[in-house]
């Protein structure tokens, strides 16, 4: 647990720094509106009182950390986890489509990478179109996808997960193309001398050699997946999920709600990235990874 402590101290220090900065910015950003407000109400508060007011607006430009914390705490711990006002519930809704989309996306990314590395036709023809596909702004096509899927009777988790898939397969595909091509040329020659089949070379050489690229890409992909899940929640009527919270918050200018949903999203993201990181380290260890 020593490593745990050696981790906790830096994280808390930096977090504390962030919080202090955050307060400073909260005062600066909320001040103009507070001034207008006071002016309209013909009040002239003292500096301390003024700062206090900037940190307690109901719909601040930048909510103060304690406002977010209180909101976050209430919506996380004081609500039953099945209530649709509970952040835990909303986070879970988002998480489920994130995970499904991430699984699809990783699988699809790997399949595409395998195809590109092994089939010349695909190498030559597919990559430009995959790139093109990624530049299609997802928020623009998401509604159409959802409409089309709904028309063929697919609703619920799958459409959202598909948008996650769309965003997450690309990092994996790009990384894995690189990774699968990264074995030493001498190692490839060795497999060549054994007349190893493509699949043998793939499983015994290319896959292990690509592991560092795989896990790095998966970290990016899981974050992208989460973004996709949140984006996908909007056109489904934004009934539940972190995206729905963000939207309804934005719609009513409830900045505190937005920020606590953002914090929830970030926490989920950080956890997901950490899990992928840990999985990566476990795999590395199982592969006899040499300590740095």
């Amino acid at each position: 647990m020593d490593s745990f402590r050696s981790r906790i101290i830096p994280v808390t220090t930096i977090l504390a720094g962030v919080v202090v900065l955050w307060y400073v910015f909260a005062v600066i950003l909320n001040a103009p509106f507070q001034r207008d407000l006071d002016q309209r109400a013909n009040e002239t508060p003292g500096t301390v009182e003024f700062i206090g007011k900037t940190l307690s607006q109901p719909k601040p430009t930048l909510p103060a950390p304690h406002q977010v914390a209180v909101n976050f705490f209430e919506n996380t711990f004081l609500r039953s986890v099945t209530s649709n006002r509970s952040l835990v519930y909303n986070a879970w809704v988002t998480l489920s489509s994130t995970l499904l989309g991430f699984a699809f996306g990783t699988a699809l990314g790997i399949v595409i990478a395998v195809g590109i590395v092994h089939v010349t036709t695909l190498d030559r023809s597919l990559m430009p179109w995959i790139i093109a596909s990624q530049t299609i702004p997802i928020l623009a096509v998401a509604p159409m996808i959802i409409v089309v899927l709904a028309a063929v009777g697919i609703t619920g988790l799958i459409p959202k997960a598909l948008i996650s898939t769309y965003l997450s397969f690309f990092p994996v595909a790009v990384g894995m193309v690189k990774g699968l091509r990264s074995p030493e040329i001498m190692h490839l020659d060795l497999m060549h001398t054994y007349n190893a089949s493509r699949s043998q070379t793939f499983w015994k050489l290319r896959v292990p050699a690509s592991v560092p690229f795989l896990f790095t890409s998966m970290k990016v992909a899981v974050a992208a997946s989460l973004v996709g899940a949140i984006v996908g929640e909007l056109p489904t009527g934004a009934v539940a999920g972190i995206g729905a919270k963000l939207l309804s918050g934005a719609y009513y200018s409830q900045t505190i709600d937005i920020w606590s949903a953002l914090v929830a999203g970030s926490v989920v993201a950080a956890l997901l990235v950490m899990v992928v990181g840990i999985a990566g380290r476990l795999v590395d260890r199982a592969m006899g990874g040499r300590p740095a």
Partner: protein
Amino acid sequence: MTWLKPSWQAVLAILFCLVALALGAMSKPEAAALAQPTATTIYPYMGTKGLILGLLLIAALVSAVRLAPVVEAAVLFIGAHIAAWLLIKGIAGFEGTALAPYFLALAAAWLLAWRCVALLSSLRPAANGAKTALRLIIPAIFGAWILIIWEAVTRGAGIPFILLPPPSAIGARIANSLPILGSDVRQTIFKAVLIGYIVGNLAGFVVAILADRVPFLRRGLLPIGNMVSALPIIGVAPIMVMWFGFDWPSKAAVVIIMTFFPMLVNTVAGLAASGHMERDLMRTYASGYWPTLLKLRLPAAMPFIFNALKINSTLALIGAIVAEFFGTPVVGMGFRISTEVGRMNIDMVWAEIAVAALAGSVFYGVVALVERAVTFWHPSVRGG
């Protein structure tokens, strides 16, 4: 049997043509005409039905004969594309009336084109010019077929224009809206994307180096880096508009946030990628942190860093466009997309998407070229 070498694509194509022939009418008007032979209704493919199917059959059969690959590819190319052109041309005026044989013929043509691409990519021409030509032709045929199928299906099945317009309509729209598209590209790509991309990548890179340099920051910054950068764009975009105004700086800020994380993660991974013996070598020179970084660890990290640059090249584009959904001046690709959806000008939406795809591909291509030049030594570039 040595003169015969049927490919599975050709066999399937022949099969599809035969089934299409057996099923009869290609479109509803034709079916109606067949049912009432006395009436003189005009229906699609009156004169060309035999031509289309015949062309496909002949091309498929010829391709099954052992020929020089170039000749075979040429036959397939011509057969598949003329047939496709006739199919699409014929349905004009009768949108939405296509029946199964229409789609079978389309599938057959597509299979032949596939065979053609497979043949072309197996060619190993000696001349450099031919090599470059092939590099361009192959993805072009592949892409052309995405468009052909799209065009044929939207018209054949009569998909409503406001759900998915055919590519021809999108093309026409692009041609007619060049000034608007130009100003949108200037606003979104040359301002928000480029600046955001550069700053975001730099920021991710610098934070990765900082985290690498200072162990304290590594433990503190990385987890927070993980949190900040997965921030969902929908949540961040309105806040950025609030902070940086509604013009392009807020979009650039969104792009920065989106591109930061991939760069951070990849740089951190890349910095761990240098070999032990090489690091030991630098130690024997008592090389300081920065020389080691510059001369060993960064070059070794380049494959990872370019990974991030590639992923970010498309991510930046998505980010900037999506960020424009949230409050912008009345110019920009994202603005245009969201507005024209509301006006049911879906062809304009797709025109912007096409421009975005083109810009993104060029962007990615440039990054990939630089990558080849910088990581020429990496096995993935040297061969393998």
